[in-house]
């Protein structure tokens, strides 16, 4: 029987001629990632278990992004633990405040992820790198410690769902709308333990930033990974970023898929997820007029330069509505600088937005935009669980940068086409 793209990458890294869904394998890792929340736990178990060396300091990356710049004394302690470990073990790719950014935007930008590689990260949105044709998945801190020690992790080979994209995106509709729509179709556990393999003629119309957004939220459908084929756009993106050799895998013609979900991009509308599950989707038109107190534009899902360009094009010569706080957070230092160079920063500040240094902060109710009881945000982030952005009785509506920016302008959920 043939293998899916994911299964081929796993087989190659396990030194096996082939694998099939359900096999328990041990695979070699190309990169192990941790952040300021998950690395300290990994460091604690690493040390408590009596280990004194890492498998390869070049293949470990630690990014301080969640509570940074540190919001309190305890988070400063977490960063210190991660920083000291990085220095002690000579971790090459250690990114602190001032060089860092949100991990899943930063790693592709720095060329740390390439097609055919296996990247594991102690952060659930590690699945983002499927956009470049890598197998990447979220793990916990103990897995991270095990990966740092041995350069290996255990995996159960996943079955796959094929997502066939047809047509092309139009108007304000973006990668975010594609993934929210898909999660609405298959549910928050629709891809549990499975791969999502994106394919079809519609893929070519998606920018790399759209693909990063889509792969990023595979986990919100329960997916183990969400992977795209490697095409000219991928190779153009990698040019100048990745100079090591890499392998491009394609699925076998007789690869087995549990099901195929087809999305016609021509017909897709701007979509949001209402509280409190990403699968609770509606078209923007269905919920237009719902009031918000806050708009957040940023995160590992939608804090890339094209996201901010779209938001700025809507906020240009407009003002954030009275009573609404709009918080814009470029995902990395490079994106921040690009915003300054292109004049986007001036647009945001003139519109009345708060414009911040890179951080995951508000997405997880960490800092930089927590909400109190009864407040509602529209947010380009990835989760709208109970209490995600603060009080248990606050609400998060997930949306694209275009919808979030249009909503910031009117104060109520708005289709950007209606501005």
């Amino acid at each position, binding site marked *: 029987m043939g293998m899916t793209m994911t299964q081929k990458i796993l087989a190659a890294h396990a030194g096996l001629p082939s694998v099939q869904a359900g096999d328990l394998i041990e695979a070699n890792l190309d990169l192990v990632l941790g952040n300021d*929340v998950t690395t300290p736990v990994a460091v604690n178990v690493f040390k408590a278990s009596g280990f004194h060396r890492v498998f390869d300091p070049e293949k470990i990356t630690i990014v301080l992004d969640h509570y940074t710049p540190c919001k309190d004394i305890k988070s400063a302690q977490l960063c210190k633990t991660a920083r000291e470990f990085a220095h002690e073990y000579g971790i090459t790719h250690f990114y602190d405040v001032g060089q860092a950014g949100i991990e899943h935007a930063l790693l592709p930008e720095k060329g740390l992820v390439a097609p055919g590689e296996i990247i594991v990260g102690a952060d659930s949105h590690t699945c983002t790198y499927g956009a470049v044709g890598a197998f990447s998945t979220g*793990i916990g801190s103990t897995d991270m410690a095990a990966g740092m020690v041995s350069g290996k992790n255990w995996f159960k080979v996943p079955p796959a769902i094929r997502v066939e994209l047809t047509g092309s995106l139009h108007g304000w509709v973006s990668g975010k709308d594609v993934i929210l729509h898909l999660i609405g179709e298959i549910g*928050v556990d629709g891809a*549990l333990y499975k791969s999502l393999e994106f394919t079809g003629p519609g893929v070519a119309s998606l920018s790399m930033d759209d693909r990063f957004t889509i792969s990023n939220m595979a986990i919100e459908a329960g997916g183990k990974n969400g992977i795209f084929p490697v095409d000219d756009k991928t190779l153009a993106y990698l040019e100048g970023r990745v100079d090591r050799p890499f392998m491009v895998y394609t699925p076998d013609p007789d690869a087995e898929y549990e099901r195929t979900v087809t999305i016609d991009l021509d017909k897709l509308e701007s979509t949001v997820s209402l509280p409190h599950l990403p699968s609770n989707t509606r078209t923007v038109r269905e919920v237009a007029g719902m009031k918000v107190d806050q708009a957040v534009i940023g995160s590992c899902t939608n804090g890339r330069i094209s996201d901010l360009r779209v938001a700025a094009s809507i906020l240009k010569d407009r003002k954030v509505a009275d009573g609404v706080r709009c918080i814009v957070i470029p995902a990395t230092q490079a994106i921040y600088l690009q915003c300054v160079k292109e004049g986007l920063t001036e647009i945001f500040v003139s519109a009345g937005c708060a414009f911040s240094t890179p951080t995951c902060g508000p997405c997880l109710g*960490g800092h930089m935009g927590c909400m109190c009881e009864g407040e509602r945000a529209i947010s380009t982030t990835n989760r709208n669980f*109970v209490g995600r952005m603060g009080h248990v009785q606050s609400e998060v509506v997930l949306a694209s940068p275009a919808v979030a920016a249009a909503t910031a302008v009117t104060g109520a959920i708005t289709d950007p086409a209606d501005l």
Partner: protein
Amino acid sequence: MFSGKVFKYPDNVDTDVIIPARYLNSASAAELALHCMEDIDKDFVSKVQPGDIIVGGWNFGCGSSREHAPMAIQACKVSCVIAASFARIFYRNSINIGMPILECPEAAQKIRSGDTVTVDVDSGVIRDETTGETFQATAFPPFIKKIIEKGGLLPYLKAEQDASEEK
């Protein structure tokens, strides 16, 4: 073999309610345990007794990869989590820290909050002592059993490494 009183929760219990991110500025299991399940059941921490069992529905532990979630449950001295299904990162995190976790849709549906339940992790047999019903959970593959027996993935790896260095 474990026995304890059941705390039952619905489908899609996410790691943000198991341990809210506002407490993730700590990596201490004891500190995390003080806020376990706070956003879904604020009385859990005051009521839970050593050995008690959590029963969830489908997709238990979905969301973030934070190992702080099973750490907090383990530090509350919960003996075992039973659910219809688990989100995959929560599942592997629980195994990796040596916390028993059983997948059994029928048990997850029929066991009620407050029932006393006995669990044999080796055989996967779950018995609801209150109703007398017995359920069979999916048994672990041998490799996973070894990790749990060693008390988690790192102790397992250390034992493997020490054994290979002795050779």
